[in-house]
């Protein structure tokens, strides 16, 4: 099992979500986050006051996947979240040792 964390543009979230659903992915955790990588922020002036936007709004998706689905999901996110501009985000993958469904204590991929 792999844990996938993807940081994407908020504007791409709906498309990514729909594409993942079409690919058969039902469960995911979504968080509103702020941050920046190479895409730095900028400063806006409104009515004489400066507003520094150094941490940009992003959406973080988290899901744990059976190994066989990892490539499909990564491809789907790459296709739908990409705009080609700086700030499109990143995908992180890490190995997961165990998953346990609290309700019935099922374990492993059955618990996903």
């Amino acid at each position: 099992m792999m844990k996938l964390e993807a940081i994407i543009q908020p504007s791409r979230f709906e498309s990514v979500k729909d594409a993942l659903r079409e690919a058969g992915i039902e469960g995911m955790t979504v968080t509103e986050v702020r941050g920046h990588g190479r895409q730095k922020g900028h400063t806006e002036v409104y009515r004489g006051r400066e507003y520094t936007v150094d941490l940009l709004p992003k959406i973080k998706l988290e899901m744990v996947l059976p190994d066989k689905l990892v490539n499909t999901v990564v491809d789907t996110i790459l296709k739908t979240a990409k705009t080609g501009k700086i700030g499109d985000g990143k995908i992180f993958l890490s190995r997961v040792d165990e998953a346990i469904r609290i309700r019935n204590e099922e374990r492993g991929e059955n618990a996903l």
Partner: protein
Amino acid sequence: MTTVARPGLRLSFGQPIKKMQGSVTPQSVLGPQADDERQRIRKEFESGVSARQTVLALCALADQKTQQVFEDSLQTHGQTSSGFCLLALGGYGRRLLFPYSDLDILFLFGTEKAEQTFRPLISDFSRTLWDMGFRVSSAGRTLEECKRIEEDNIEFHLALLDRRFLAGDSELFNRLDNRILPTSEKTARPFLLTQLHKLTKDRLNRYGNTIFHLEPNVKDAPGGLRDYQAAAWLRQIAENKQSLNITAAEEDLASGAVDFLSAIRCFLHYANGRNDNTLTYELQASAAERSLGVFDGEARNAAEWMRLYFRHARTLNRLLLRYLEQKALVPQTFRQRFFNAARGPKTEPPNGRPFGVRDGMYEVFNQPALSDRSQIFSLFTEAARAGIPLSRQAERCIAYIMQHPELPVSNAQISWASLREMLGADYPGFALRPMQRLGLLTDALPEFSRIDSLVVRDFYHRYTVDEHSLRTIEHLQEMADPPDERAEHFQPLWRTVDRRDLLIFALLLHDIGKGMPVENHVTGSLEALASAAERLKLSEEDVAEVHFLIERHLDMSATMQRRDIFDPATVSGFAATVGNQERLQRLCLLTYADIHAVNPEALTPWKADMLWQLFVATSNYFSRTLDRDRVHAPDETSLLEQVRGVLAGGTTEEIEKFLEGLPRRYLAVHSANDIAQHIAMYRKLRTEPVQVELRQGSGRSFSLTLMTADRPSLFATIAGVLAGWGMNIIKADAFANAAGTVVDTFHFADLHHTLELNPTEIDRFRRSLADVVNGKAPLQPLLQGRDKASRERPPKVAIETKFGFDDNSSEHSTLLEIVAQDRPGLLYDIGSTLARLWCNIEVALIDTEGQKVIDVFYLTEQGKKLGPEKQAALFEALRTKLG
């Protein structure tokens, strides 16, 4: 043995229990007996027996089994009950035992020794009851302990108010009931009342202080059974019970509401198989299908049945709130009474009106006068203006008038002028909320009844549609004293928004379509606007603004979440949809309020940030692209047609000539009617080279439109004349068309009431302005004296002066943005400095936010942007002039 009926509201069920006697019955018999009996009670409830009878039957069963097990335990342990008894407390004490409610039992001991003696018995007794399926929640106290107030256990003392003898030593109970508790309760009254107030308010806060939850908890949420019980406790503890009198009709309503909610609670317990009191969507449908709690034979769908629920919940919540409002309930010390008697209630003189403020709330002083409905509306308008609520007693007075047709109603219809005043005030929610409770909101705006208590199944929204709509308005008004950082951020928008009345009107109507049989609720809401606008006789311009806000109420939210708000194309596209700064401000506030009122967590700081960034980007786009988009008149076919429609004898060529080359903002801020008036002024320029149009707004505010051929220092001259007359400029626009005709609009406050109190001065003012602009009269004499007076007044808030040049936003001009402390004559100082350095003002946008002035000028010199040297010279000159 005797039981003493507890004081309280009228509901008390059943008869005193009888003492049970007999031999020890084995557990194998007792358990199934109790189960059978429970099954029988459930079947009877499901076949239509009332909740009142059901909870009584459950209570009788519990009483019977408790007493039987107690007697058996005494026999088994070879003990008598001397010095020991059982009391039923809380809901069980009141004989309101729901199917899966706890059995609250107090073990009362005469002495500490008795407590030790009976400990093994209690253990057996409790275990047996648990094994029989009773959820025992017990406590043990000696008589001595009952004299003390447990300050960290208010719940126990409240439960004790509903005490009832169950079994054991009745003499012991009588000592507690007749001697000990009356004395200690009297002493503890202030503590109990204060704690009960706190406990109740905390509970109401936890549920957002509203009954209108989509999936309400029928026990604990506002309007639930706990509200009724809290009201009963408040009455029971109160020293002066007369102040809490309710009429027989109110008592009947409350009793009906308790029956309805009790039926739901029984149903929920049976359906869930546990003490779960949440009325979920699924169970709402199922309750509606079996017409739970309804006996009129009428079939209702879930939404209609929920409206009945909310009606009953409103009855109980209103009763509780009235009791909570009675400050005199809390007993006072002699010193406090003496002090309060000397001070008397704080009452403002009503000044001939039938209402006034007493102790921080509006009260009605002359009830019959309220049959003139316009008096009621002015009471609401005052509440909205002052941010002072109506007392529950004032609401009762209004309700009484409304329910008694023998009092002839006059001026029943509210006019748009009155409604507008109310909606445009700082605290419109202080009027709309009680109006909704009293049914006056649907009288004034019948379209609102479509969403009255309407449940729309949606896992995102937490409240009914009407509650959501009112909350949007309350979230905006709370910006007067921002409760958090988000609100603080948006506060300046709320303070300075133009036509607040239209924004609030749009919020009232924006979701009405959800209560209409239409595919898209926006379509329905627009239909509601059309009917309301026709009835209230709104102007075309006003309808167009509200129409825009309703039609586009989801656009800003969709743009910020589904588009890249840092992409200039997104911003320019959104700006094109919105059209102008004023609309943007209204739409932004509407979006803020609409998201915020979905549920308490919906407007995350992340979303508020996105909204703010989209607002700032679009606002800056408007102010920095003014001279980019110019009107090419022949392309504006629809506008030309509209203007021709209202302009007497106008030709297309004439209209096109006037419009050609004006910045597009001119079209965004002026209606077809305004443009027609401007063209009428334009025609007169041939005979009179300076045209002045002056209109009075509300109070001291005026707006001035001046049209003439462009000339050096024109803007500074107009600003100078206004300053000379003591007028404070709040807002201004300066535009010029391709032919060099200037249309300048100034909104100003008549600080010294010169024009307001001396109408004859208006003509002199117009002449003075025209003469100075034409060069027939000098400006300097007007300015003498004003300058000194204005500089003598210290500012209330210090604003740091800032200048900034921007050469990138416009292709043709240099933008100069000035933020400075407002003062009379400031704009003249700026304008004259610009004129002195030969800077031509192509476009100007002047705005004021409290004491802060925010001016944007598009400047050119000989048709080009300002060079670096000119910018440096201008910077220096402005710094010297403005400080």
